[in-house]
């Protein structure tokens, strides 16, 4: 188990923390945040290659903050793998393996290579490996040292999208089989949601929210988390004095909410929760399409209510509705899809 309490790291005038985070054995926690949020600093401080300014990092009951990295037994995997270029794959994996005779060690290296899927590469040099293969070897190397916790710093960023899924499976499997606490740092929310038992959102050096991925996604703790997680519609509103479940948007228009609103509020609506239909003269909210941007199989539709509102619509739906710039459409959002934050 990893337990960080009040951990602070200072680097170049930038302070991260104080940070509290608990990762149980076998749990996969993703530390998620934009670049420059201080995520890597946290990992480096836990691994011991950077000094913590304050706080505790307890691993299996021992506060490791004062210990040198070689006595912490924490596995660290970087974005680019950082395999030792002068050693073969086998020698890389064996680098940190502890004790054992030559034969035993070789056996363990082979077992680990098998487990992460690089059994055929043992005699190769790192320079001849693909990004995904390097990360697998880096993972095997970290595991060979029998770590008590695993820290992964953007481990998938340098890996081809096709190889990413396979590597994600390996990471999850290893974490579960070895019952290791894992902290995985990334700026990619899709990666985080795919892997995490729990997400911890770090923005500007401060932990804004910790929770299950779906909870964090559906109920962001504040506007910064909402924006970072891609909820493009973050709007100021006030309560309709006649109906406490109707929010009057600051820029015009109104939305119905599931719960009673405070006097002033910030509304969060994910673009995929905005529904579009042909405009009808029945008085529902209408908007004008001002821009269409193709994103994978979906289209991001920019609307003017007159407040700006983004909707993410399946490409097929765009064709069915005949959406085009200048068209008027009816806009609706389910009251349960409107997340209300106190203004502030």
């Amino acid at each position, binding site marked *: 188990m990893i337990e960080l309490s009040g951990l602070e790291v200072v680097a170049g005038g930038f302070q991260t923390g104080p940070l509290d985070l608990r990762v149980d054995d076998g749990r996969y926690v993703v530390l998620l945040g934009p670049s420059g949020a201080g995520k890597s600093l946290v990992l*480096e401080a836990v*691994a*011991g*290659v950077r000094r913590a300014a304050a706080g505790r990092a307890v691993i299996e009951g021992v506060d490791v903050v004062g210990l*040198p*990295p*070689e006595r*912490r*037994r*924490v*596995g*660290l995997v*970087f974005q*680019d*793998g*950082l*395999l*030792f*270029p*002068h050693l073969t794959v086998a020698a890389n994996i064996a*680098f*940190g393996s*502890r004790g054992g005779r030559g034969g035993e060690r070789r056996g363990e290296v082979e077992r680990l290579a098998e487990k992460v899927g690089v059994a055929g590469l043992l005699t190769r040099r*790192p*320079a001849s490996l693909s990004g995904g293969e390097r990360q697998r070897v880096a993972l095997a*190397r*970290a595991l060979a*040292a029998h*770590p008590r916790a695993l820290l992964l710093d953007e481990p998938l960023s340098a890996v081809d999208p096709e190889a990413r899924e396979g590597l994600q499976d390996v990471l999850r499997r290893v974490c579960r089989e070895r019952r290791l606490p894992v902290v995985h740092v990334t700026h990619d929310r899709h990666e985080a949601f795919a892997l995490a038992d729990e997400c911890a959102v770090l923005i500007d050096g401060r932990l804004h929210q910790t929770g299950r991925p779906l909870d964090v996604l559906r109920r962001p703790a504040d506007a910064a988390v909402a924006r970072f997680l891609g909820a493009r519609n973050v709007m100021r509103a006030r309560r309709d004095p006649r109906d406490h479940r109707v929010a009057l948007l600051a820029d015009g228009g109104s939305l119905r909410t599931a719960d009673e609103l405070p006097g002033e509020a910030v509304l969060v609506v994910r673009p995929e929760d905005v529904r579009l239909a042909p405009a009808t003269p029945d008085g529902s909210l209408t908007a004008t399409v001002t821009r269409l941007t193709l994103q994978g199989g979906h289209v991001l539709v920019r609307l003017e209510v007159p407040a700006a509102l983004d909707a993410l619509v399946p490409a097929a739906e765009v064709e069915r509705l005949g959406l085009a710039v200048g068209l008027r459409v009816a806009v609706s959002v389910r009251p349960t899809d409107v997340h209300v934050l106190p203004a502030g």
Partner: protein
Amino acid sequence: MRRRRMSGRRISPFWALCVAAGILVVVFVAMPAASMLAGAGAGLLGEALRQDDVRRSLVLTVSAALITTVIGFVAGVPLAYLLARKEFPGKRAVEGLIDVPIVFPHTAAGIALLTVYGRQGIAGRLLAPLGLEFTETVAGIVLAMLFVSLPFLVDGSREAFALVDERYEHVARTLGSSRFGAFARVTFPQAWRGVLAGALLMWGRGISEFGAVVILAYNPKVISVLTFERFEGFGLRAAQPPAVLIVLVAFLVFVLVRALSAPRRRRSGTEPP
């Protein structure tokens, strides 16, 4: 990027100027070097090796420079590593200071050393009871060589270490290596070419040193001093054999340095940004 070919097109006056200047420089450097190497072919080398004082001087020069390099390695590599890895107050000043001997006129360097390590100098008086004297001794030759050649090893090693991403050491330490272990197993194996190239450069610089050595130790004669003495006393013809010999040795060192540092310039795993 497509490389611009100069043939088959009109060459602009700018390129013509660059090429002309280049040819002048190449000829200027190549002629004396070629003359010496041709001399080696013309029997001067054999003549040099048959002369007792030249042979003795060659052994003295090469071994003194070797001792110098070993001392420089032991003292300079840790400093180079420190400079490559750590920021500390006064670091720029230290880096500048290391390079000062490069710009010193070497005779002036000899004088400076004499004021400190000579019989009346502060270090000279301290070390004399230990049997270390620096005037007219091999120790003096080594001292002079060390002073003028150390920058080459320190600078070369520092650059080589700096090219190795520090995070390799971080990984090694999380894998159980001590600080020294990480250096010895991960950093040095990646930087050794640069360090060795620096050491060879230092050795070569030591071998060819004249100005600082002659001030501290005219005797025993290193080969550059012997060449000078023969030229002063007996003229050009007598000075040629030792000169040819030393140029040949220096040339071999130079070829070795080039061979070591030319391939795989960027060896560390990280791509340049």
